[in-house]
């Protein structure tokens, strides 16, 4: 993995030091114990470097979320990790085998080292508790020593970071716009200064303009705070523009894993090409997609049935 393609400005951790891994996933397998069982994640190996943005692309149902949840062990029955390992390399040295953590250790680990931002901010925020309470919840649990005043200040601080006025803290989720909610979620993810942030389709439900604003915010924060991001979406053009490296998933497997530039210019796997072709370029030539090309293949019924 070379990182010389990515713009240097994107990562403070960059420079001349070799990339340092913060999360390693090895041969992870996740199975849904349903009838029949669904092998949702197959032998996935990934390395997330400190401060980088790793894009995870693939169409609906390919196992992106399952992978993300398994990393944080959020998967619930009937999902089960059957084999593989997930290792977290802490900033202060010391590796954590996430799959071996006991309940209490896992609980302490979550959010403090690795936080998550989910797709629908409306449903990811508890609708009946104020934003402040939901932010402070994290602090009271993970930083019991903090005083009330400190907690409040910290909450205000992260909100300011993501560009939300701190006085909106007292609002309830439904009183905020979709973009604001997503920002609040990101603020919440930043509370404990985590080293990794997993974002599962954080902008799909949003307006293109709002989406753009949030993506910029994420990049800005990453540059400032230096956390690594796993960014999950099916919007490949978006990933190409945003991320340093991209993993393309198909039916639970990672079929292509490379720098964004390489994937854009020289996609190797046919599926990656299909994906790229599914998104006509705004400024590119017309006609290449229309009525011919890759897309025409899925014209045949049944084939598009990925499931």
């Amino acid at each position, binding site marked *: 993995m070379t990182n010389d393609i990515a713009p240097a*400005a994107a990562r403070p951790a960059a420079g001349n030091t070799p990339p340092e891994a913060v999360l390693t996933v090895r041969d992870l397998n996740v199975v849904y114990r349903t009838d029949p069982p669904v092998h949702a994640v197959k032998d996935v190996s990934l390395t997330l470097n400190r401060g980088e943005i790793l894009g995870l692309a693939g169409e609906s149902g390919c196992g992106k979320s399952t992978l993300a949840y398994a990393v944080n062990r959020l998967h619930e029955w009937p999902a089960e990790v059957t084999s593989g390992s997930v290792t977290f390399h802490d900033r202060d040295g010391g590796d954590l085998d996430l799959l071996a953590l006991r309940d209490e250790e896992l609980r302490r680990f979550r959010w403090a080292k690795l936080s998550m931002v989910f797709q629908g901010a409306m449903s990811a925020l508890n609708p009946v508790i104020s934003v402040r309470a939901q932010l402070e919840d994290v602090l009271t649990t993970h930083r019991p020593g903090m005083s009330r005043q400190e907690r409040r200040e910290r909450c205000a601080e992260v909100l300011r970071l993501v560009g939300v006025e701190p006085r909106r803290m007292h609002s309830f989720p439904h009183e905020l716009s979709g973009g604001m909610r997503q920002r609040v979620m990101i603020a919440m993810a930043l509370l404990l200064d985590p080293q990794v942030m997993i974002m599962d389709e954080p902008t799909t439900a949003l307006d293109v303009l709002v989406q753009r604003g949030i993506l910029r915010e994420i990049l800005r924060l990453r540059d400032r705070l230096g956390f690594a991001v796993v960014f999950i979406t*099916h919007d490949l053009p978006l990933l190409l523009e945003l991320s340093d490296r991209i993993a393309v998933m198909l039916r639970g497997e990672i079929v292509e894993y490379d720098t964004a530039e390489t994937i854009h210019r020289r996609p190797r796997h046919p599926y990656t090409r299909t994906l790229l072709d599914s998104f006509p370029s*705004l400024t590119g030539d*017309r006609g290449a997609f229309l009525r011919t090309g890759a897309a025409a293949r899925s014209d045949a*019924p049944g084939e598009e049935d990925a499931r």
Partner: protein
Amino acid sequence: MTTLEVRDLVKDFTLRSGLRRSRLRAVHRVGFTLVPGRTVALVGASGSGKSTVARMIARLEKPTSGAITAVDSAGRRVEDPRYRDHVQMVFQDPFASLNPFHSVEHHIARPLLLHGRSRGRDETRERVAQLLERVSLPAAAVMDRRPHELSGGQRQRVAIARALAPGAQVVVADEPVSMLDVSSRLGVLNLLARLQREDDLAVLYITHDLATARHFSDDILVMNRGRVVERGPADDVILGPRHPYTQLLAAAAPDPELRGRLGSAEPEPETASDRDHLTYDHFAGRWIDVDAEGTDAAAA
């Protein structure tokens, strides 16, 4: 061949919070013409009023003012009871637009029967099969299935077949692919394009995706806050946007070619400009003030 003319369309919603009422103008003096064989794309960010226009055309919503007139091939105005023979709609969510309770056949047979396009069981079944074949679905296999047994793309095809069933010449497609898997999107769009070509349909394609709008339509209307802010041939609008809002929109669309753009400073959006209420018309090549000139001038 039916032409649909939309003129000076206005829609106000009354918002009630408690006993207080307020008025929201969702659509403001929108006008355009859908002509056979051409696709018009309606683009804009969320809440700009696109769906409201579509719903008014489908007569699901009454316009506050303005006119929607369909004119048939003979140049006669289509009167009310027959309006739905000519104008149909495809909805955004293929899951929600098909009743989980009914079979595919039912969904297509009903409009056939309602619009007198077939009579008797056998004839109906045959026509349903024909329609399914037209949307590239294997009729025999699909006919007796229920929506949940089909994939998203297949469902959307059924929805298109349903729209075609009454013999509609004008089809309004409200974000027909935004709920679909990436791999089935182009399939459905291509199907629409093919049908449009074959039947000389007039299509209103609503989307927020500028890229597909550009590639799948002939003309583009850009909407913002209920107004059309820019109109013109697809490439002109996308490649040479004149209205600040369109520029903003175009800039927001992800483009791998412009990698690194995100990190750099971009012009801050949403600053009110003096052109906000004006429409740039690429056909006419000038700014138009609909409030002063009306949509007739613009729709020409």
